[in-house]
């Protein structure tokens, strides 16, 4: 009797699971990427719960910021859970290994890090994070306005640091400045005094720090301690409250580009992201405390909004859990138009799997230990 009941329950469960939409989410909630992955995991509870009367199941796994673990998670999603879409992952290296499996299994993937595959490789991969080029472009405008001719650079010795350095050097000539130093540090380094000294001695007009979150504050404070008086730029990865807490008054005047969600309470009402970002920020901070908002969690929210819109279309064409549904979902994602998310407005196409425009970035500076809006980008 017990056995039959168990069988029945399993049969029922699988019958309902057939109709549900299953999304596999692999995030870096431990390891070096944890400050990105944790707010993303916290956002899962705020994602759309159903679309067109179908329930959406989210299966969340941790990849420990490790490419091997991310690949293993993706295999599990594809082979065991038969997911309709994979959201992965928090960092570029972990996202790129998942992309191979997504392509092989013809499962659409949404990456939360600025991972930019090219050609056929990008067919199944969409990215919600802004490209570093897009974010850098608003910094270039600010540099031109402030007559910055020489730029010093201190960045992570990893993909993030490399990519920002590449963006700077590739556009330096066109933008009329020269990158005069390229120093690297590790997230957990106990001192960056040597690098800061080196950059300071070049006497650049401005310095850009290619790091994320609290580690970005260390080179900044080291430079100020050495008496560096010039402008200091940061990347959008640095924008969280812990960064402000750690850096203290040394951060005054730091300029950085961010997604609109960071400035949700200062955005003009005309900004398309205002209402979505405000709703997300309020819900998130209600659950996790004031000042806990992170731009990284908001990427997952945007992924959820993209899926909600695309799944409604795909459901009319196929049954969830089938290859036809996955293909329909991919096509629907690719034809997303004018979707207002927390990080700007998404207009995807076969050529552009990022879908951002200048509304995805605002320029801010640190003033009195708070963010202050410089320009809203629209």
């Amino acid at each position: 009797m017990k056995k039959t009941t168990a069988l029945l329950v399993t049969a029922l469960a699988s019958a309902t699971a057939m109709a549900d939409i299953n999304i596999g989410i692999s995030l870096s909630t431990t390891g070096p990427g944890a400050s990105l992955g944790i707010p993303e995991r916290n956002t899962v509870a705020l994602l759309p719960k159903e679309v067109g009367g179908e329930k959406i199941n989210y299966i969340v796994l941790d990849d420990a910021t490790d490419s091997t673990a991310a690949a293993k998670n993706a295999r599990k999603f594809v082979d065991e859970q038969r997911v309709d879409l994979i959201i992965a992952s928090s960092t570029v290296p972990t996202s790129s290994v998942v992309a191979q499996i997504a392509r092989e299994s013809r499962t659409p993937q949404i990456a939360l890090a600025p991972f930019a595959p090219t050609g056929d490789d990008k067919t199944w991969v969409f990215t919600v994070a802004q490209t570093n080029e897009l974010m850098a472009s608003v910094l270039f405008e600010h540099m031109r306005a402030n007559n910055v001719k020489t730029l010093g650079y201190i960045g992570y010795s990893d993909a993030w640091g490399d990519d920002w350095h590449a963006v700077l050097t590739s556009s330096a000539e066109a933008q009329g400045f020269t990158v005069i130093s390229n120093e690297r540090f590790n997230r957990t380094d106990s001192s960056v005094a040597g690098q800061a000294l080196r950059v300071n001695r070049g006497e650049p007009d401005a310095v850009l720090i290619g790091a994320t979150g609290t580690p970005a504050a260390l080179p900044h404070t080291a430079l100020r301690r050495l008496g560096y008086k010039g402008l200091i730029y940061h990347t959008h990865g640095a924008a969280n409250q812990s960064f402000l807490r750690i850096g203290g008054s040394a951060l005054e005047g730091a300029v950085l580009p961010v997604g609109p969600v960071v400035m949700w309470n200062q955005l003009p009402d005309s900004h398309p992201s205002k209402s979505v970002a405000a709703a997300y920020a309020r819900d998130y901070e209600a659950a996790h405390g004031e000042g806990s908002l992170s731009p990284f969690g908001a990427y997952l929210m945007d992924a959820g909004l993209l899926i909600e819109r695309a799944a409604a279309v795909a459901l009319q064409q196929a049954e969830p859990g089938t290859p036809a549904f996955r293909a329909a979902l991919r096509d629907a994602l690719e034809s997303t138009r004018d979707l207002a998310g927390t990080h700007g407005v998404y207009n995807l196409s076969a050529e552009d799997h990022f879908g951002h425009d200048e509304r995805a970035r605002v320029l801010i500076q640190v003033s009195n230990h708070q963010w202050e809006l410089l320009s809203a980008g629209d």
Partner: protein
Amino acid sequence: MDWYVFTFLTQDGLTTGAIYALIALALVLVFAVTRVILVGQGDFVTLSALTLATLQAGKTPATVWLLLGGASLVCVKMLAAAAREGRLAQAPRILLMQMTLPCVLALVCWLVEPATLPGALKVLLSIVIIAPLGPVLYRLVYQPVAQASVLQLLIISVAIHIAVIGISLWIFGAEGFRTLPFTSGNLDLGEVSISLQSVLVIGIALALIVALYLFFGHTLYGKALRATAFNQRGAQLVGVPTDLAGSHAFLLAAIIGAVSGILIGPITTLYYDSGFLITLKGFVAAIIGGMASYPLAAAGAFLVGLLESFASFWVSAYKEVIVFTLVLPVLLWLSLTTHHVEEEQH
């Protein structure tokens, strides 16, 4: 390279070198007495710094609950052993010995508003919370496998380190912390300016090194610990309680780690997982000392600190490569000059 750059980098290198020296000493100490390579040594550093940062933020540090939980487990283990051997009469004594300090600390943290404590007491409280974690760790994990091979003990250490990092991420979160500086002054010597914070770090580290030297060279108990290190069975035969020696070595290591955390906290940003890199650098220094010599390990640590500082100025992208490559010639030298003695078989 001018005089200013040279003195600046030297000062920076000596400051981090002092921290590495303390870690290296603790590693050598623990290895000598128990044959454990304590991968988690750096975790004591981050735990104490993050505990102090939490206290300074006016919150109750969760590490005190970690200590309470760990001590309770030790108690359960000891009581079970006592019950098995029919020594239940000792139960009150075991409870009193193991639980008094953790309970008092938990009560203090629970009853006293951390924000009202004076700064020095917060520092003291952080050290007192972290220090007993050493013996707790030894009694829970290493004592039952004290006779295992060095390799097995190393694997256990790696496992413990990963577990501690997980707990620490859970307690403190992924963002970094920095503690308030003890002093913000500078010592001006001509055009060179030396921060008092650096002087304080180097001074306290040197004082601790001298204290350890005196302890091991000139006290009976220190000599007994050294005897355990040389020959465990022989020490047992002449009446040295070797289990206690292990526990005390871990206590010393935890104290050294906690003090290092307090010293380094205001200088840099520490994360839940910063400890590993600090242990590794200390380990390089300990290897320079052949995992046996305290003065050589300390000298090696200052060398590592200086090398790191100068490398970060010239070729920052290859800094770690340069520091860790230092191990190769040292190992080559050691393997050519020392006679390999087979480890005592059990």
